[in-house]
């Protein structure tokens, strides 16, 4: 059978439907928990996916990622606190709708729009991933090197306020990836006499350290913030009202989907940017006076765009190995840990059935999200009341289990705590952890590509020919320069705005 249809047949079996339901349930709770993000949920889950086959691991993680993008709407609507940064627009529009006594409509709009976002994002993944992966077949070591450089520069320029800090973060990640035995020769680097470091920095340990521990410390910091929880009482007919309001606006659905898909494909961006762009667009273009003051229409756009991002972010992840968002980076890590490399091989080789099962699952999990979400709304309303002083130590203990489980090594737990404290300090200094983690992920790909390209250049006697005068190398060099120039302009603009504010 063709792997595309094999994937669809697989995903409709009870095994994968059940995995999606579990992923959606856990993801919804993860999104709703105060201070908990999809990335944190995925990093804590990651070590336990080792016991699964790679397809099941991907399906579970994909469902969790998408559902967390819905779950974050619950605290956003009920306590005006975004469960994740992607729910900032939802916190504005959704909470205003809640204050009008329409909490059920707000949560159901988030659910319906999120499910629709999964469909459209999943469709983009299905249609665009394979052709893009076919291009990667033409990539030799120099192209792979420049793709890696582009991934790092675009991530550095789009995350955080400072381009310089983004670049430094990416270089820090690359440095961390060089710890342990060198890939090209058996020389040990940066082990400092510790045998535990000879095997290198374990990816999962670093991911948990960089993504989860600083969030736990942030929970401790912000736990005194008093929150008013809006009352939630189910209203008969609310679901039909939401479905009518949503499905009669095809142009809005199309625009929000396109925003989510485009932002999702661009590496290093993700849900927060997509949701805000889509929300701005609906504020600008809608003739409805209620938009911006608490309306279903105003809530559809950010929620739909946010969920379209989740599958769309997998397009560069699966085809080029450059994650479109932080949660996609964790899913990429899962792939790599299962010994599966991104690129053409995923779509044509022995892994094709796995890839298409995952791709179809992002689409089908839209239905699962709608069904499970309807059953879970009342539970999620209770989840947001869990006090942070109880949640933070529980998350820490789960992080410890995750870090230990990779190599059954207590040293890794200490390393995770160390990375967490480092990430916390870096964040306080204005660094984002995304570029660091991407550097760590891309280091093992970029370094051998650079060394092989240099050997090639030496053999041919021309650096220019190997590094620059190849069409795809030239394209990715141009894209890297563009991303740096773009980042530099944004940085200068931000400095001017800051200076004007100070004046």
């Amino acid at each position, binding site marked *: 059978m063709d792997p595309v249809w094999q994937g669809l047949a697989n995903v409709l079996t009870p095994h994968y439907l059940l995995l999606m339901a579990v992923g959606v349930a856990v993801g919804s709770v993860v999104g709703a928990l105060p201070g908990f993000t999809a990335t944190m949920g995925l990093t804590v889950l990651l070590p336990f996916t080792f016991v699964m086959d790679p397809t099941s691991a991907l399906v579970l993680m994909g469902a969790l990622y998408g559902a967390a993008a819905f779950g974050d709407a619950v605290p956003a609507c009920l306590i005006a606190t975004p469960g994740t940064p992607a729910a900032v627009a939802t916190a504005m529009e959704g909470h205003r709708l809640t204050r009008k006594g329409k909490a059920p409509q707000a949560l159901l709009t988030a659910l319906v729009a999120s499910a629709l976002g999964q469909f459209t994002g999943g469709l983009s993944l299905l249609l665009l991933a394979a052709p893009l992966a076919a291009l990667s077949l033409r990539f030799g070591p120099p192209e792979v090197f420049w793709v890696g450089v582009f991934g790092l520069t675009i991530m550095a320029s789009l995350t955080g306020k400072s381009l310089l800090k983004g670049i430094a973060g990416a*270089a820090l990640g690359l440095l961390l990836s*060089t710890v342990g035995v060198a890939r090209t020769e058996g020389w040990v680097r*940066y082990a400092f006499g510790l045998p535990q470091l000879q095997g290198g920095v374990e990816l999962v340990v670093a991911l948990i350290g960089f993504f989860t521990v600083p969030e736990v410390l942030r929970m401790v910091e912000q736990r005194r913030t008093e929150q008013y929880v809006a009352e939630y009482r189910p209203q008969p007919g609310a679901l039909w009202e939401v479905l009518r309001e949503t499905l009669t606006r095809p142009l809005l659905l199309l625009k929000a989907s396109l925003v989510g898909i485009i932002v999702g494909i661009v590496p290093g961006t993700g849900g927060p940017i997509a949701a805000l762009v889509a929300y701005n667009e609906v504020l600008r273009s809608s003739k409805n006076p209620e938009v911006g003051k608490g309306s279903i229409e105003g809530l559809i756009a950010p929620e739909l765009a946010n969920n379209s991002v989740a599958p769309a972010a997998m397009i560069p992840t699966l085809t080029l190995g450059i994650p479109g968002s932080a949660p996609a980076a964790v899913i990429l890590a899962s792939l790599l840990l299962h010994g599966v490399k991104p690129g053409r091989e995923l779509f044509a080789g022995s892994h094709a059935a796995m890839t298409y099962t995952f791709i179809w699952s992002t689409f089908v999990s839209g239905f699962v999200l709608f069904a499970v979400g309807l059953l879970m709304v009342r539970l999620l309303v209770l989840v947001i009341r869990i006090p942070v002083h*109880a949640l933070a130590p529980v998350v820490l203990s789960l992080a*410890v289990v995750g870090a230990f489980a990779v190599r059954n090594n207590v040293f890794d737990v200490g390393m995770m705590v160390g990375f967490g404290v480092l990430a916390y300090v870096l964040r306080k200094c204005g*660094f984002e952890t995304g570029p660091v983690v991407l550097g760590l992920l891309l280091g093992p790909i970029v370094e051998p590509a650079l060394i092989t390209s240099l050997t090639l250049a030496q053999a041919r006697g021309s650096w220019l020919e190997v590094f620059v005068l190849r069409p795809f190398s030239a394209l990715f060099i141009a894209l890297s320069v563009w991303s740096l120039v773009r980042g530099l302009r944004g940085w200068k603009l931000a400095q001017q705005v800051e200076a004007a504010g100070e004046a």
Partner: protein
Amino acid sequence: MGAGREVRMNASVVGGLLLLAVAGVAFWGAHGGTPAVWLFPRLAAGVVAVAGLLLTEEGLRRPDRVVLWRSWREGLEVLGFALAAAVYAAALAWLGFWFATALMLAGAAHSLQPRRQPGRLVFWLVVGLALGLGFDALFVGVFGVPLPGGALWGGAPWRPWLP
């Protein structure tokens, strides 16, 4: 340094110096073998060093006094929690996952709750023990993760019954 005073720092200078320290260690540690061994780490260290220099210079020229914590109390609580996490990690092998987790959960939840109530410590200890043993049973029994049983006890109380 009152309890309610904001704690600020020059983030560019602190970040820049941190980068310079990392770059120094990276340059010092990347040696031996052919260029294939040290070229890539030295390139990355070079980028880190240049970024560190530029950031430090920028921070000295235009100090950016960012808020580190809203008060010293908040800062001490965060540092205390980070220290507790480090002690928890160090004590795992000796106390075992279940007991270290119980102590960490009870201690952290009790000290972080908004209003301290002495009687609540017993409650958090019970919750901590239940969760510590529950997680141990789940991860050891179901997922097969060989979590440290603790040199002090030789395992969690339920483990002798593990098939």
